[in-house]
């Protein structure tokens, strides 16, 4: 079984370096990182400029995406949680979903071969 799984992690910008290092240690050798805006339970925060409150509801976060095949999904998820969990609201979310096909553009290799 060469099931491929996509793992998306949305979390605090400040945790990106730690997360990247931890994922490298368990053998993740590729990822895509984007700056994103969003809110969940944290529901934004207040900024103050010239004495006036501005509520900023969309907060800047990072989204880290990777597709795994040989590395167990649980290993990735557990590693991410161990790095990211502070217990405060705003720690983020992890989404896990199946991937039906992967193609490596340079070589044309597919699926498991494409992910090595």
């Amino acid at each position, binding site marked *: 079984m060469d099931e491929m799984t996509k793992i998306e992690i949305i979390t605090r910008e400040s945790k990106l370096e730690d997360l990247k290092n931890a994922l490298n240690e368990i053998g993740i050798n590729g990822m895509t990182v984007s700056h994103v805006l969003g809110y969940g339970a944290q529901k934004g925060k207040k*900024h*103050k*400029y*010239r*004495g*006036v*409150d*501005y*509520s*900023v*509801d969309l907060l800047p976060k990072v989204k880290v995406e990777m597709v795994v095949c040989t590395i167990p999904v649980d290993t990735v998820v557990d590693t991410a949680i161990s790095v990211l969990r502070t217990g405060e609201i705003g720690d983020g979310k992890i989404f896990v979903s199946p991937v039906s096909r992967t193609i490596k553009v340079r070589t044309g290799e597919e699926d498991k071969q494409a992910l090595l």
Partner: protein
Amino acid sequence: MIDTGSTAFIIICVTYVFLMTPGLAFFYGGLSQKKNVVNTMMMSFFIMGLASVLWILVGYSLSFSGDIGGFIGNLGWFGFSGVGTEPGPYSDVIPNSCFAIFQMMFAIITPALITGAVAGRMRFKAIFFFILFWLFVVYFPMAHMVWGGGFLAQLGSVDFAGGNVVHISSGVTGLVLAIMLGKRKAARKQTLIPHNIPYVVLGAALLWFGWFGFNGGSALAADGLAIHAIITTNTSAACAMLSWMLIDVIKDGKPTLVGACTGAVVGLVAITPGAGFVPVWASFIIGALVSPICYFAVSVLKNKFGYDDALDAFGCHGIGGIWGGIATGLFAQSSINPVAQWNGLFFGDYRLFLAQVISIVVTIALAIIGTFICAGIVKLITPLRVSEDDENVGLSDSEHGETAYSLFD
């Protein structure tokens, strides 16, 4: 007789004051939203073209040539004809043309200050024509009345570098325009935070730099009064920056960079009318008190009365200018500058103080009436405000077809 040292100094001050307008474009640009920054900066920048052309053609003449009823000059110097390199009539030591071009820089930055109040919703075509008319209806008369021998000068009020002419006139105009335009749509949602604070710092730095030429050069000579003005200017800015930081810390525990920049600018505004009249110790008081006054205006008054002075042109320049004019009436000393006929109220004479209050009231009245007239004429040409769709998209695109920061290069 021409003094080459003074002439050289004023020529350099010309370039200092010139740089304040692009500086203001950065100050306002940083405070504005990403989708509006092109428009916000353009509203300051285009005036370097418009006001320059008008000044050479008729502006200098209407402000400084002759006198009609104490209100405005005549067309004797139309197109700079007769504005030569001989000294006088406004200074014995620099060419008339040098004075004229120094004054031109004030005519550029003053209308640019207004644009902070209207950012994010005024049609570019409307602000273009508004400022074209406003220079004739408000600025040239103000410059004449205060500096060109008009009736506010005859009254005995003093304005060293433009508290009335520059700051109160532009700030009050901004307030009236902001009320006429109505609130920005997003102002109700409270999402209008500054999009680029480093731009705000760049702008504030260029303004502070330029202000040495603005106030120092207003001595119109490279002399002791010029350096006195430079010292009071810097001291006021420094105290105001510190007092704004202190207010931030007391209110919210953290000093903000936007607050430090705003404090510095209102400190510069407040010292402008008195820079060459008040003793150095008074500049500590003028600077330290302007920040709480302006902070109150932008955080309490604005909210209470519900006008959307977008980037606080009125809150900083109008209010700061009024405090500066009053403070000049409190602390001026004729021993520092004999242009002030009387000492300030602090030294026991009420006459200068009274003249200052009258000149402030006249300035406010002219700015209000002038703004209604100019906006009235503009409305015959174009609506003042952009459509709701354009406001949502942003004025960079809707007014100029440009995007400040492209997503892909």
